[in-house]
C-alpha cells in the first residue's frame, strides 16, 4: 500500500462530508506524526547514539526520586497497557471472549484512573524535585522543559477526559469512535468522521498525544525505545573484539597516492 492509494481512498470522502480541518487533524496530522516519530528515531539513532540516554539525575538526589520515579514509570506502563487494550483491541474481540461492555468499562475506568493518578502524582513529585533541587534544576535543558510541559499536558488531559466523562455522563464509550479511528490510521484507510462527535477533552488528549509523539524522538524520552528487555536473555558477561581500525582514518592502500 503506497501513499498514493491512501490519498485516493481518502480524498473523496474528505471532499464529500468531512471538513478540511477534520481531515487535517485526523488524517494528515496522524501520518505526519508517524513519519516524524519513525524517521526521527532512525535519524537520532544514526547520528546521536551518544546522546541516547536516560540522563539520570539520581546521583544528585535520590530521596524524592525513589518515590517519584517508580510511581511515574510503573504508572505510565500501566497506562500504556490500558491504551493498547483500549485502542488496538477491537470491542468485538473482548465481547467474543465474554467480557461485557460494562465489565470492560468498569475495569478500564477504575484501573485507568488509579494508574493515571499514580502517574500524575509521580510526575508531580519529579517536577517538584526538578525545580527545587538545585543541581537537578541546573542540569535541566530547555528541551527537557518543553518535554515536561507536553507530557504533563497529555497526562492531565487524558486523566480529566476519563474522569469528566464518568462524572458527567456515566462514561464515554471511546471504543466505538476513537479506537476505530486509531486503527483506521494504521489500516491506511483513515476515517475522520469517526472523530467528529468525540467529546472535546478526548479530542484534545489525542491531539496533545500526537504532539508528544512528534517531539518524542528529539527528547530524552527516546530511552523508552531501548528499554533493556534483552537483559533477561543475554549472557552475563559480554565479550567483544577490539575495533579493527585503530586509526581515525583507514590506512592508504599501496597503490594510492599520498596526499600532498
Amino acid at each position, binding site marked *: 500500500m503506497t501513499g498514493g492509494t491512501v490519498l485516493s481512498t481518502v480524498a473523496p470522502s474528505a471532499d464529500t462530508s468531512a471538513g478540511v480541518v477534520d481531515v487535517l487533524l485526523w488524517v494528515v496530522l496522524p501520518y505526519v506524526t508517524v513519519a516524524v516519530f519513525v524517521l526521527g528515531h532512525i535519524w537520532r539513532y544514526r547520528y546521536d547514539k*551518544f546522546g541516547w*540516554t536516560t540522563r539520570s539525575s539520581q546521583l544528585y538526589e535520590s530521596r524524592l526520586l525513589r518515590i517519584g520515579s517508580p510511581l511515574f514509570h510503573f504508572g505510565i506502563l500501566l497506562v500504556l497497557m490500558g491504551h493498547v487494550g483500549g485502542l488496538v483491541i477491537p470491542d468485538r474481540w473482548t465481547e467474543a471472549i465474554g467480557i461485557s461492555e460494562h465489565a470492560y468499562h468498569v475495569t478500564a475506568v477504575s484501573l485507568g484512573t488509579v494508574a493515571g493518578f499514580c502517574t500524575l502524582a509521580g510526575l508531580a513529585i519529579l517536577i517538584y524535585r526538578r525545580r527545587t533541587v538545585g543541581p537537578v534544576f541546573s542540569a535541566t535543558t530547555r*528541551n527537557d522543559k518543553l518535554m515536561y510541559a507536553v507530557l504533563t499536558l497529555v497526562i492531565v488531559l487524558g486523566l480529566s477526559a476519563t474522569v469528566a466523562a464518568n462524572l458527567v455522563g456515566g462514561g464515554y464509550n471511546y471504543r466505538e469512535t476513537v479506537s476505530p479511528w486509531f486503527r483506521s490510521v494504521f489500516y491506511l484507510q483513515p476515517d475522520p468522521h469517526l472523530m467528529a462527535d468525540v467529546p472535546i477533552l478526548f479530542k484534545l488528549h489525542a491531539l496533545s498525544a500526537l504532539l508528544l509523539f512528534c517531539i518524542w524522538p528529539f527528547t530524552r524520552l527516546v530511552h523508552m525505545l*531501548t528499554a533493556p528487555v534483552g537483559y533477561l536473555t543475554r549472557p*552475563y558477561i559480554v565479550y567483544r573484539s577490539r575495533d*579493527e581500525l585503530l*586509526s581515525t582514518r583507514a590506512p592508504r592502500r599501496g597503490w594510492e597516492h599520498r*596526499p600532498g
Partner: protein
Amino acid sequence: MRVMAQMAMVMNLDKCIGCHTCSVTCKQAWTNRSGVEYVWFNNVETRPGQGYPRRYEDQDKWRGGWTLNRRGRLELKAGGRLRKLMTIFANPKLPSIDDYYEPWTYDYDTLTNAPLQEHTPVARPKSLISGEDMKISWSANWDDDLGGSPGLADRDVVLGQVSEKVKLEFEKTFMFYLPRICEHCLNPSCAASCPSGAIYKRAEDGIVLVDQDRCRGWRMCVTGCPYKKVYFNHRTGKAEKCTFCFPRVEVGIPTVCSETCVGRLRYIGLMLYDADKVLEAASTPDEKGLYEAQRQVFLDPHDPEVVAAAGRAGIPRDWIEAAQRSPVHALINTYRVALPLHPEYRTMPMVWYIPPLSPVVDVVRDTGHDAEDSGNLFAAIEALRIPVDYLAQLFTAGDPAPVEAVLRRLAAMRSYMRDINLGREPDEGIPAKVDMTGEQMYDMYRLLALAKYDERYVIPPAHTEQAHRLEEIATECSLNYEGGPGMGGWGPFGETSGGAAPIAVENFHMLRQRQTADSPVDPADKHARVNLLNWDGKGRPAGLFPPRREASGTAAPDAEESADGTATTVSEEPKR
C-alpha cells in the same frame, strides 16, 4: 581449554609513598572534564581508612560483586536480572555524590577583580555541582596519611572485620597506601549488571570497557562493581571507568598511572588464562580458597600445550612470547608474592598487590633489633598478628597463611640480599626456608628492585594488520568517521550529544616514538621544528606554518620528506 589473554597489573605496596602522582596524571589525562569532576579512575587510599567512595568495601550495604546462592551457584549480590529491571527506575543501592565527595573549584576571579580593600580578598570554594558556596568537608583522600584519625580510620570496613584488640593497635602502629584502579576482572560484575550490555570485556586483552554509544545510563554497573570503580558522568548520563589506557597499551606503552609512578611500583604484563575455568573458580565454596582457585585459572605460558592451545585460539605469537616474559606472571605464579584485592567479591580481579613488609620491618627496627635478619623478621611476622590479619582481610578473604608466606619470602629476600650486597657469602639456608633457590631469590630481587622500564612493562602492541581489508576493498565506507553531525561541537540533546571525538591513534604512536627515540635532543625532524624562543615577533617564523600548496597540487618537497614525522600531519588535515 580455552586460552585467553589478559592485560594485568601488579603493584608493589612496599614502594608506594602515597604521592598521588598516579591519581593526578590519570585525572589530567582522562577525567579532567565536566560531569566527572568527582571521578578518580585511579585513587590512592591510606590504610587504615575509609577509601573512596566512603566505606565502599561494606558490601552488606552496597551489595557489589557476586555471591553464592543456596544452591552454591554464582549470582549477583544486588539481585538477578528481574530484580534489576524492577528497580531500574530508582536504583536503591547507588552511592550519592556525598558518598564520593562534592567536587569544588575556587572563585579565583575575586582575587584579581576585587576592589582595593583593607583585607586580602579570598577565593571561596564553589561547588561544581550546584555552583553555590560550599564548605569543603570531604574529598577523595580526605583521610590521607591518617588525617582526622582516630575518628575517621575507625570507620575502616576492613578494620571492623578484624578483632577489637587489633583495631586499637593497628591505627596507632601501621599505615600504608593502596593505589586502586579498575580491576579489569575475569568475571566482571559491572558487565553482568549492565542491562544494556554496554560494558564488555575485550576478547584480545581482557580490558573491560564501557561502550559509550550503547550505555543508556541505567546505573546498575555502579552498584554491581564492588570496588566502586565504575562512575556515572552526571552531564552525559553515561557510565565511565578506567580504560587501562587502552589507546596507549595498544601501541605498546604503559598506562599513564604506571608511566608516571614515582616509586616505579607498577608492573604490566599479560596473563594467559583458561576461560572455561573462570566460572568454576569464582564459585569456589570457601572464600579463603578463592586466591588459590584464581591462581589455578592462570596458565603457564611456557607449557608447550598451552602455547599450542593459545596459537589455536588465535593469540599471536608475539603475544605468547610477551606472556612468557610477563613480570605479572612472574610475580603472581613464579614467585607467588602478588595477591588479589578482595578475592571474596568473586569477580576474579586482575590488578594484584605485593603486600607491604615495611610495617613489620619498622617494628623490628624500632625495638632495636636487626631488621635485616631473617630470623628476626620471620619471628616478627609470626608474632605481629596485627598487620598480617589486616592484610589478610584485604588480599585473601581473611586467610593469614598466604600473606604470611609472601611476607616471609620478602623478608628472606631482604636478608639474603644483604649478605650479597655486603660481599659476604650468601646463606643458601635463607631461600631454602621459603622454598626457593638462591638463584630464584636473586631473580626476584632483580624484578622487584632493579627492573628497568622494559622489564616492568612488557606490553605487546595490538595487531592492526589490514590484510582482510585489502581483500574486500570496496565493502567498507571510507567516510566512517567524517562529517557526522555534532562533530563540530555539542548536539542539541544535552551535553556532548552527537558523538565523542574518535581517539587518534596517530598521537599515541607519535608519543611512543618520541619516548623510545634514541636521541631525544636531536630529533630527526629537527629541520621542520620551530623554536619560538628565538623569534622576535616580526614576520612569520620559518616552518611555523605548512608550506603553501601550489595550485597544480604537487606535493611540497618538504612535506614528502618527513612523511613519518609530525610536521605533515597538520598540512594533511584539510585535505582529508
